[in-house]
């Protein structure tokens, strides 16, 4: 980050070299061009602000329902918004949504906010992928909900769901216009998700039996242990969610007059804005990668890498290029997974840095894994230290390095039954050996940080 102050130097050197000889454009044309550029910057700023605001709305939802503030949660929706709850059906309008959330969360329609004794309704809202429409008036978002639910002395339950939202800008205020809430499972803590039987969540919930939806779902889906992919609002390897401005190749020369001074300031602001937008694009990119990995979509996940991108997981070695990376990913299971296989890769806690030219980025991410294979549940946890590249405005993963912290059996937990990392595969061997040799839990080590300390600015010294 200490390099931020020198990022303008190349521009200035160029400007010096060019002098004022290049001021061929008339001042009127220059003024018009600058005004046009500022208008575009204002739109782009609104786009990035929309992403942060929609993240805020999504996270607010979680904080409200956690504590039984169901009216406040329903207030995040437009007046005639719809809420699809799993296969139960569709509820329409704020008051119906409020009651829906209240009933599922164990609250009360009579009282103020709150929950009764012993009710747990922690619904963590994670891994947002937000796509704002080009006109800036609507948007879509995908979220992962990870729930800790239950009733003291009676039940502890894991919740897993995918949310696909549509948002609208109404009178300058972003609101949720439609939410499709795809429950994947509500699994008992004892035994976990691996004990669930087919068909568990195709039937109507107890809430829906007493509180009938306003309309049925267009089509029912098979939840876990089936492998169902809730429709993505994004598609292909270059969705809008991972687009930004191209990197700065060379800074334009600016004349030495009042207008030129403003042009130069606009250049600097434009780059600053482009980098802020890139942060969100990289955040979206890694989120999308996680959603593809969830469902064994190896080809789609591999297509998010650059041509020479690398993939390294634990001690499995390095796979180079999308075709090879697809093979590396397939070590986790068959493409599309099989019934009963869970492969949730929860992507959280990003620390993203975009370089001064908006050309490359680095990010640290936390990952939790909820797996099941052959009827056995598993936990995993690790840290990514990744690199990304801006290919003419589309962000790609150029280096993915997953450092395994722990892997363990669900029943006894990672503490009692840690699973060591796999060595490089002999059937689908990597292109290169591991770049870093280490052991996972019970061994622990500090995963190197790509960034200097946020306050002191000094490189990390292992303590």
């Amino acid at each position, binding site marked *: 980050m200490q390099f931020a102050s020198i990022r303008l130097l190349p521009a200035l050197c160029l400007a010096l070299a060019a002098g004022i000889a290049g001021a061929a454009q008339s001042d009127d044309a220059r*003024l018009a061009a600058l005004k046009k550029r500022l208008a575009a910057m204002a739109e782009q700023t609104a786009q*990035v602000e929309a992403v942060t605001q929609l993240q805020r709305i999504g996270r607010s939802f979680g904080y409200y329902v956690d504590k039984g503030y169901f009216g406040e949660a329903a207030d995040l929706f437009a007046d005639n918004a719809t809420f699809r709850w799993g296969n139960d059906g569709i509820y329409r309008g704020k008051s119906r949504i409020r009651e829906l959330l209240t009933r599922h969360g164990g609250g009360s329609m009579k009282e103020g906010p709150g929950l009764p004794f012993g009710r747990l309704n922690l619904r*963590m809202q994670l891994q947002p992928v937000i796509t704002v429409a080009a006109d800036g008036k609507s948007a879509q978002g995908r979220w992962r909900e990870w729930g800790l639910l239950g009733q003291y002395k009676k039940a502890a339950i894991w919740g897993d769901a995918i949310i696909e939202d549509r948002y609208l800008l109404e009178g300058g205020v972003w609101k949720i216009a439609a939410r499709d809430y795809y429950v994947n499972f509500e699994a008992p803590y004892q035994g976990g998700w691996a004990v669930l039987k087919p068909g568990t969540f195709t039937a109507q919930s107890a809430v829906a039996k007493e509180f009938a939806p306003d309309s049925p779902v267009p089509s029912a889906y098979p939840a876990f242990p089936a492998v169902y992919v809730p429709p993505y609002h994004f598609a292909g390897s270059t969705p809008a969610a991972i687009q930004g401005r191209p990197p700065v190749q060379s800074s334009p020369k600016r004349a030495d007059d009042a207008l030129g001074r403003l042009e130069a300031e606009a250049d*600097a602001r434009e780059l600053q804005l482009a980098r802020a937008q890139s942060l969100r694009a990289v955040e979206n990119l890694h989120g999308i990668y996680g959603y593809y990995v969830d469902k064994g979509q190896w080809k789609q996940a591999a297509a998010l890498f650059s041509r020479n991108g690398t993939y390294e997981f634990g001690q499995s070695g390095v796979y180079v290029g999308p075709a090879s990376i697809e093979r590396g990913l397939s070590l986790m299971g068959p493409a599309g997974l099989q019934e009963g296989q869970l492969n949730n890769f929860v992507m959280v806690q990003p620390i993203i840095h975009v370089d001064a030219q908006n050309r490359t980025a680095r990010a640290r991410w936390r990952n939790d894994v909820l797996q099941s294979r052959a009827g056995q549940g598993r936990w995993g946890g690790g840290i990514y230290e990744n690199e990304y590249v801006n290919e003419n405005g589309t962000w790609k993963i150029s280096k993915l390095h997953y450092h395994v912290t722990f892997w363990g059996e669900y029943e006894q937990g990672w503490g009692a039954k840690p699973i060591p990392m796999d060595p490089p595969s002999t059937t689908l061997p990597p292109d290169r050996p591991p770049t870093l040799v280490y052991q996972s839990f019970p061994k*622990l080590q500090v995963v190197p940080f790509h960034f200097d300390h946020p306050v002191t600015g000094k490189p990390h010294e292992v303590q």
Partner: protein
Amino acid sequence: MATNKIASTVLARGLVLLLGLAGAGGAAAAPSAADIAAVEKELSALAPRIERLEDLHEVEIVQHAYGYYVDKAQWKSLADLFADDATLEIGGKGVFLGKQRVYQYMNEGMGAPGPRDGLLIDHQQFQCLPTILEDGVTARARCIAFVMSSGGWGHVYYENVYRKYDGKWKVQTLHGPFNMYSGYRQGWVDNVTVNTYPEKFAPWPDLPPTVVYLTYPSYYAEPFHYANPVTGKVAPPPSPRAGGEAFGR
């Protein structure tokens, strides 16, 4: 970082000014002062909005870094995230005053620096909701620490205050109310820890807890620092019956 930005902007302006002086006299008719002023106004309206986007990100980085440092007991790095006169209050332990005491709380309360084989203390930072206040140098954030540790599960909120010093955001107030702590074997169906308290472990706090509450299976709702992002209304306190069996009856 923002200081650097200001510095670089000043530098840029200075050099552009120098260029302007060197080339004076050769320029064609300049646009009207009104035109220039209008453009200048537009740019200066955009600048704080763009800076706010960066600030939101940087505050989140401070909180996320805090989590990574806790994971591996990197107490010096952790304490360095705090302002000299910061405060720290986690669970029911009371308030610790100043960066040195933050270090001591971690070093004595949580154990010596560095990861210890076989002891997992992952403090995962989830769902951060930062707000930059009007003054541009104060921020607040509600976040979750989802703890996966050798002891089991923990779900903790933060309602923190951050302040920008010389362009760097630091933790000014760390306030971490617990929501749920449980062991691994049974999960939160039983065997939950309802809160910590000042004498639970050394060191003792400088000030008593700012709020005394019981966590799950009881109910406590930490006030929200932010207004509802759609209605603009601040959420009221919960029903006084919340956390009791009569709630909703």
